[in-house]
């Protein structure tokens, strides 16, 4: 202990350098964690979070009472989480391998640059682009009509939106996501490939036995990091791209967009408070579980 204090004193300059980040994280991340206690309180704006009266589990009764809404939100959240995780990660890897294997390096680089661009466009702007494609006189309907089909009214048909949001999300994130994997691919020892070639392995075998296994640690970390956010969503996608349209809620409403809506429209937060509490706790439990499992199997790939 004495040694520790001594060491800290010796590094006082470093401690000082850390203080701004420590303070910001404390006030903007840690204090709101305590704000989760709101789930057990009835919020009173005059008394603030800390002074509001405790109501025990009353807020959770709202969740149960709402029955369908709540299950629908949860299921939608999980549905998109799994689609985006599985499809997104596979596409990231596929794209990374494709660019890595591509012999026209210059062209590959140029294409990659273009593929990354969408991630830098905010969803507030993306929604206009989606609208240009899907509105009644949008690009997609123009193409359908060109081939003699009936135009589809996308914005009032919830059944199409799982696919639409998935496409938008992939358009937005796959190019960017592949960069991480490319960096791992660049680090693979080329001699491994040479050796495999000498042993008579073809391209497919090389990918199966050298490339893919080397991507496992990165993939594990990405999955682990994402598990904590299993109940969270990319709010912009669900709030902006759907234009927050009530007709589409059956397939597009997720917990986060519900909470955002309630913050912008209502002043009673009971339901949302309970929902966000549930979001955070489920996330925490899952990430601890996942990390524990990974550590059992392959300690090197665990997060902590």
């Amino acid at each position, binding site marked *: 202990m004495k040694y520790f204090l001594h060491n800290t004193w010796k590094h006082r300059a470093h401690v000082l350098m850390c203080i701004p980040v420590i303070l910001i994280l404390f006030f903007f991340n840690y204090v709101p964690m305590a704000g989760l206690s709101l789930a057990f309180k009835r919020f009173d704006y005059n008394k603030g979070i800390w002074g509001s009266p405790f109501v025990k589990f009353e807020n959770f009764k709202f969740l149960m009472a709402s029955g369908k809404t709540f299950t629908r939100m949860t299921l939608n959240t999980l549905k998109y989480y799994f689609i985006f995780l599985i499809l997104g990660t596979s596409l990231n890897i596929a794209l990374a391998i494709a660019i890595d294997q591509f012999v026209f390096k210059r062209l590959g680089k140029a294409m990659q640059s273009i593929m990354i661009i969408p991630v830098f466009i905010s969803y*507030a702007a993306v929604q*206009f682009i989606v609208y240009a494609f899907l509105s009644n*006189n949008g690009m997609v309907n123009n193409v359908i009509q060109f081939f003699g089909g009936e135009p589809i009214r996308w914005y009032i048909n919830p059944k199409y939106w799982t696919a639409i949001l998935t496409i938008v999300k992939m358009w937005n994130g796959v190019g960017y996501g592949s960069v991480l994997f490319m960096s791992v691919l660049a680090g693979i020892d080329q001699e491994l490939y040479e050796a495999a070639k000498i042993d008579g392995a073809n391209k497919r075998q090389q990918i199966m036995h050298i490339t893919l296994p080397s991507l496992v640690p990165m993939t594990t970390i990405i999955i682990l990091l994402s598990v904590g956010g299993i109940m969270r969503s990319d709010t912009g996608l669900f709030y902006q791209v759907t234009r927050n349209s009530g007709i589409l809620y059956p397939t597009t409403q997720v917990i986060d967009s519900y909470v955002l809506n309630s913050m912008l429209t209502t002043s009673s937060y009971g339901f949302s408070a309970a929902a966000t509490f549930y979001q955070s706790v489920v996330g925490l439990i899952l990430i601890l579980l996942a990390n524990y499992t990974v550590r059992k199997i392959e300690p090197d790939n665990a997060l902590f």
Partner: protein
Amino acid sequence: MEYAAVGNKENVFRARKKKKISVGQYILAFILGLYTLFCLLPILLVFVTAFSDDKSIASNGYSYFPEKWSLEGFRYVFKYGRQLFTSYGVTIFITVVGTIFGLLIMSMFAFALSRRDFMFRKFLSVYILIPMLFSGGQLANYLVFTSSYKLKDSLLLLIIPLSVSTMNIIILRTYIQTSIPEELMDSARIDGAGEYRTFFQIVMPLMKPVLASVGFMMATAYWNDWQNALLYIDTASKNPLQLLLIRIQKNIEFLLNNKNISGAALAAIQKGIPEYSATMATVLTVIGPIMIAYPFFQKYFIKGLTVGSIKG
């Protein structure tokens, strides 16, 4: 020496030329090309629509080959004149201040974390890891920031929450550990430079590539942040661009769907607003600066991600 290098290059060149390019590569090129188009076409549509004549869109729908080109959309956007100007100012302000502030405090933190004999750093590593795994969620944030800190309608809320991120700290720390030689810092210390001088005069200048890449990511996050603005900002003079974009959409939607306006008046309004081209022109003014900045930062950006992703 020089000759050898040239010769070597030539060999590589010849080897590449000799190597037969298989059919698979052409198929790959085709697929990658298709995907590139898939990424590019939506963005292209923004450009084309912004410069299209509104009536041709209204009658024929969106198209990559409009009947008539026009600058009407931009004229309408500049009618917002003042507000657009103010919003540009606000967005540039929060982007610049936030990025510089965030980079500064995060690099200092990363620098301290990279000192191996600093015992406090174990605690600090856990301290920054927890917010990545667990959070109070947006509602708790919102209520704490507005009702406890009384920061509603303050630009601070657009700057501070985005200024620190665990991932960025890890990227910066990894870069310091792997790319800046320990001996360099030690020799600076032996020459009598204090920790602050070592950091600001030796380490910071060497961090340029990683600062560029993290900085660009942060700047786009600030530039694109609409959610905090939508939640916290009320005053028009503090509206950033993204919020203006949302408001324009709401306004147009309101005007076009308002049942209280008589048919004739509605028609007149609709005629007055170049609905399609104006919205896209606005989108273009909002995303334009990022599109322009991107090519300059791209090289650093990919490199930075690469370095940071090595598990440290």
